[in-house]
């Protein structure tokens, strides 16, 4: 029961933080709100028994990505002016509401696959076996390595001086 209550509290804060990212005019405050959102998602993972994922979420998103975002904002001029609004605000709002309705209806009406076994704890060993073990997901892991090589090459090329 405690898990369920904390899930909903975390989810509510998470959504509020996400709304803050959109509605806060000051880019720096929006970034802080985004970090809060990341942190809440990590909390959600814990309530869903995904302990390893929660740790990765904190390390990568709350730790690394947020520092990166804040550094990028510090190096950008004219942050104080905030993000300009545009004429598409109202259409975008209507589309977003429609999308929300479709997604919520889908979530409620679909007979989902529900696992009958209780969740594993801790998940780290099981994840490692699935990723690297016999009959697992070694191919995506290997492609991800090549993907990172390609991303590094791209970064070098795009960051060069003209």
């Amino acid at each position: 029961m405690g898990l369920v209550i904390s899930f909903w509290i975390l989810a509510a804060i998470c959504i509020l933080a996400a709304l803050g990212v959109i509605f806060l005019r000051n880019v720096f405050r929006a970034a802080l709100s985004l970090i809060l959102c990341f942190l809440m998602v990590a909390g959600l993972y814990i309530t869903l028994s995904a302990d390893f994922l929660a740790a990765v979420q904190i390390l990568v998103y709350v730790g690394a990505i947020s520092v990166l975002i804040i550094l990028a904002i510090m190096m950008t001029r004219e942050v104080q002016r905030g993000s300009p609004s545009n004429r598409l605000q109202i259409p975008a709002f209507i589309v977003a509401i429609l999308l929300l309705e479709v997604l919520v209806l889908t979530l409620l009406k679909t007979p989902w696959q529900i696992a009958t076994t209780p969740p594993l704890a801790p998940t780290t060993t099981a994840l490692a076996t699935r990723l690297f073990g016999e009959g697992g997901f070694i191919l995506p892991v290997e492609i991800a390595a090549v993907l990172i090589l390609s991303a590094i090459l791209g970064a070098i090329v795009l960051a060069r001086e003209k």
Partner: protein
Amino acid sequence: MNLALFIPELALVATAVIVILLDLLTEQKRLLAQVSISGLVVAGGVTVAMWGHNFPTIFNNMLAVDNFALFFKMLFLGVAFLVILSSVDYVIKFARFQGEYYALVLLATLGMMLMAATTNLIAIYIAIELTSISLYALVGFLKDAKSTEASLKYLLLGAVASAVLLYGMALIFGFTGKTNLHDIAQSIQALSPPTLFASPALILGIVLLVAGFGFKIAAVPFQMWVPDVYEGAPTPITAYLSVASKAAGFAIILRVFFSAFGQPDWLSQNWGLIFAGLAVISMTLGNIMAIPQSNIKRLLGYSSIAQAGYLMVGLAALGVSPVGDILGQSGVLFFLASYVFTNMGAFIAVIAISGKLNSDLIDDYAGMGKRAPLLALALTLCLISLIGMPPAAGFMAKFYIFSAAVQHDLLWLVVIAVLNSVISAYYYLRVVKVMWLGQAASQEKVPSSAALRLALVLSCLGVLLLGIIPGYMMRLAELAARIFIP
């Protein structure tokens, strides 16, 4: 597991790494292109040797080595070969980072080869990302204002498309509990029709997948990136995007929709109708928007949107037809092969002409018939093929696809497609008219390098051969499409 079946992919990764390292050691930059091409030839040779053996899947059912995958791998390797040939003179202008250029082309090719072969949603997603990230960097390679804007636009819209795709995959995984396409098909077929009908998650998942893949093939309404990205990117990369990236998108659509959602019939009829609708708006908007264009790269960009529309006529025919329609499936593959040769040829001619003129404006092509008769002839042949007139490959390609659609009661769609072909003739022939009848600004000849000429001759040969003796390619396409017949 037999790692020997993975040699083409391994060869490409190895070549990419060798090219980067060699770039540091040698001053002879042409060597980089030669090494890249030899890597492609090795990979291609092994791929050809694997054809027709019906190997089992490898990596725990994640990577298929069937004829369908091999067909597309050969196509992508061929395109990469032509792209590197046509890049040699273009890349020599860069002072540095030539090795990275070739390596990124090779890695993008690897990503597309994996896209055509993977049979698992997770591997499919990572293969798409590998392709996309390499292409984002290549589009921005010039670092001038237009190229940077193109790269940024492509990156942002591509990231949104990826997110949409992932959401669709998540819904399908949540509904079926499986990520392997074959397992997804089984768990969908195990459900009773009323349960399926009352499951919006499956439908929404399919719609989101169509949107995500639609971005890759540049179908309307997911096409807004096309004109700016095509205009800003280095021209060989524009050619690569318009041909290989699109073919990879179609390969993955064919595999996902046939392997996972091919049965029951009403499901495939529904996605068939989605593709019919997208086909109509893609053809019509692509062709109408192409008419006022004055830049040849933008014109070919809109034309490639329209071509994706014709291809989706084929997909629609496959969706509404009951299983076992070998003609329709091999027709789509044949169209892709002919489109690859045709559009590559057109872009190589553009690279040759624009490289000399330093302009992509159609008006500057005036008098090309006198200044560079062979280039103008090749471009004319390719444009005629894009219209779909004999004796070029485009005629047979449209013939196969449209006749498959007529057989499955999609006459209305074929009528729209034929009307669109007539509209398209207007702007394609305008380029031809400017080239042959326009007054040249100067009488200076337009020379082209040996590598470009070789690439152009190969593409035009492909266009002519597919148009005059389509039987061979059709037989290859039939063998490749056979995996979808249960």
